[in-house]
């Protein structure tokens, strides 16, 4: 049986998505129940669908010293880092602990594959990459973490987790282990994924993309809307930031069922949830809010709704926020972790946008509209292809009994 972990302080956090740049933009959009989705204007041969596109990436080149890392994904990473004083918080941690004592753990599903796609569209007559795309580091999935290590001048452990849509949830688990074992004193965790042809046409080929804005847990839901986002959090021991919200626990588990369909009874998801509760030392009844994976795919939502009904009392409120941001894939774990932290900070349970006609599989737990109530403990679910499941547990510094 798992022992509860010693909670960590989430001493700084931020998110940038289709809802805007930084925490305040996210809080306002959630409060106003305003979606960030728009008709797809991204791909060269636009698919009829809606996307969660981040504004201003095209006008925000990387600073000259980082020019070798230029690509849409690293631009979004840099844009995200510059919100909410996050860059300064990392610099302070680096000064306090030393550059080798701060880990950098990033989740992404496709990193800068968009740059590789572009190179293939512009191959030289001899069949090779054009000269301006012969930047080796951006054509590997570690591109994001490699860029951030340089941009943040961090020299400790640096790892990319790429487990599809659970990627940037799992980095919290890796960080906790490294801190507990004394390998590092702090960790920058997070993730970035950007719109690209691979995921738009790939999910379309799997017939998982909706033609309309996604409707998580709605009776007539018809698939996902793909989004892009960047999010980051700084984890330290609680003594370093006693007033900050806490990472209470995490859970990870595998479905062992199918590459692109969830286990019909949500076995891996349930194991991850129970694992997170055990590490957090929580009973289900102590959970105030769960930010669901809720992609608006037929199967995920059916399985997840049943899981919540089975494990939690109706006092635990639940919603998906993918109707706001779209499914940000490898960034979903951190973005929705940040939504859980905003719920704690502002006492705001965000309504499940897009669920106007609730699926009867959904129990009384579902918050279909915004609810204003104290949130002491919040979970975030993230499930990915390959049956890869993760769940994070956060809490207010002084948890409400």
């Amino acid at each position, binding site marked *: 049986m798992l022992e509860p972990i010693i909670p960590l302080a989430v001493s700084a956090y931020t998110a940038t998505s289709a809802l805007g740049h930084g925490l305040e933009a996210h809080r306002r959009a959630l409060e106003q129940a305003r979606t960030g989705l728009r008709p797809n204007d991204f791909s060269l041969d636009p698919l009829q669908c809606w996307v969660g596109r981040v504004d201003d990436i095209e006008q925000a080149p990387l600073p000259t010293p980082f020019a070798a890392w230029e690509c849409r994904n690293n631009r979004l990473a840099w844009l995200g880092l510059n919100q909410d004083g996050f860059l300064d918080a990392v610099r302070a941690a680096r000064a306090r602990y030393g550059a080798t004592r701060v880990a950098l753990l990033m989740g992404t599903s496709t990193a800068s594959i968009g740059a590789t796609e572009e190179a293939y569209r512009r191959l030289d007559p001899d069949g090779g990459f054009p000269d301006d795309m012969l930047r080796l580091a951006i054509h590997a999935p570690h591109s994001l973490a490699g860029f951030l290590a340089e941009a943040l001048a961090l020299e400790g452990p640096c790892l990319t987790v*790429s487990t599809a849509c659970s990627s940037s949830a799992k980095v919290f688990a890796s960080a906790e282990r490294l801190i507990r*074992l004394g390998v590092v004193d702090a960790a920058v965790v997070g993730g970035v994924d950007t719109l690209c042809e691979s995921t738009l046409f790939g999910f379309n080929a799997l017939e998982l993309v909706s033609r309309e804005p996604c409707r998580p847990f709605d009776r007539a839901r018809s698939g996902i809307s793909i989004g892009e986002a960047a999010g980051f959090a700084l984890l330290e021991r609680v003594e370093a930031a006693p007033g900050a919200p806490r990472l209470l626990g995490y859970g990870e588990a595998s479905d062992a069922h199918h590459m692109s369909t969830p286990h019909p009874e949500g076995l891996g998801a349930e194991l991850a949830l129970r694992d997170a509760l055990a590490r957090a030392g929580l009973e289900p009844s102590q959970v105030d809010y769960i930010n669901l994976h809720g992609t608006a795919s037929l199967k995920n939502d059916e399985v997840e709704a049943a899981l919540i009904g089975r494990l939690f009392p109706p006092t635990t409120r639940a919603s998906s926020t993918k109707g706001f941001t779209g499914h940000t894939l490898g960034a979903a774990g951190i973005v929705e972790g940040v939504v859980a932290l905003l719920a704690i900070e502002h006492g705001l349970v965000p309504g499940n946008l897009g669920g106007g006609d609730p699926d009867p599989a959904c129990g009384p737990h579902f918050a279909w509209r915004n609810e204003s109530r104290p949130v002491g403990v919040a979970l975030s679910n993230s499930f990915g292809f390959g049956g890869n499941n993760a769940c994070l547990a956060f809490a207010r510094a002084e948890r409400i009994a």
Partner: protein
Amino acid sequence: MSALAVYVEGIGLWSPQLPDFAALRATLAGEAVAPPPARPPAALLPAGERRRAPESVLLAVEVAGQAVTMSGRDAATLPCVFASSHGDQPIMDYMCATLASAPSELSPTRFHNSVHNAPAGYWTIATGCHAPSNAVCAQRASVGAGLLEAASLALADGQPVLLVCSDTAGSGPLTEVTASTAPFGCALVLSPQPGASTLGRLVLHLCPGSIVDAPVVPGVPADWIASSPAAVALPLLALLAQGEGRCRLMAAGSLGMDVHLEERA
């Protein structure tokens, strides 16, 4: 930091020259080794899956199966970490080429096989493993970073962990930027405690700074090591074949890791 120490219980290996770990031992002893067939057998996969599975999956499942068999552990209970610098390069090449010419013809199966955690997914499905599974990378430091992730998981949760480090060969125009000329895979079962199947104790120590020199292993051709980002594991595998010694891996872009193998007590 205090050093991390884990016990090796099983070793898997596959490259165009070496069908398993015993073949590396033989090579180091100066014996001739017959090269394996072009496709890793990956006998653990059901026959249908084995026919359809992409190269990255065959390679990872082959070495994972070897290591777990040697350890005597039950694969279904082992948390696993799959490290690969570039994932499945033939699929990446196919995806980028198709997206450049006829995006709406993209194969749904190849798309879901393109995720970096495809080997972890197929492995957990084939073995009925519900334990945590991970898929990681760190550019040219994926082996060392994967070893750090796997060792910290084993020690933090007090249970044995499967580590797989593998990369396919490059394919198409992508090869120019990945510098992977051959496939290479290896796997270790790492336990936090010594046991009946312990082969040796690995002590890991992080040391700031980059490695300047290319790794050299007497008896192993340098071009084997240079052929794949996963083949930087060869110095570590050679230590395991010899029973004791030290080597250095990269754990991150600017972080080295001293690896000390102590002989089995």
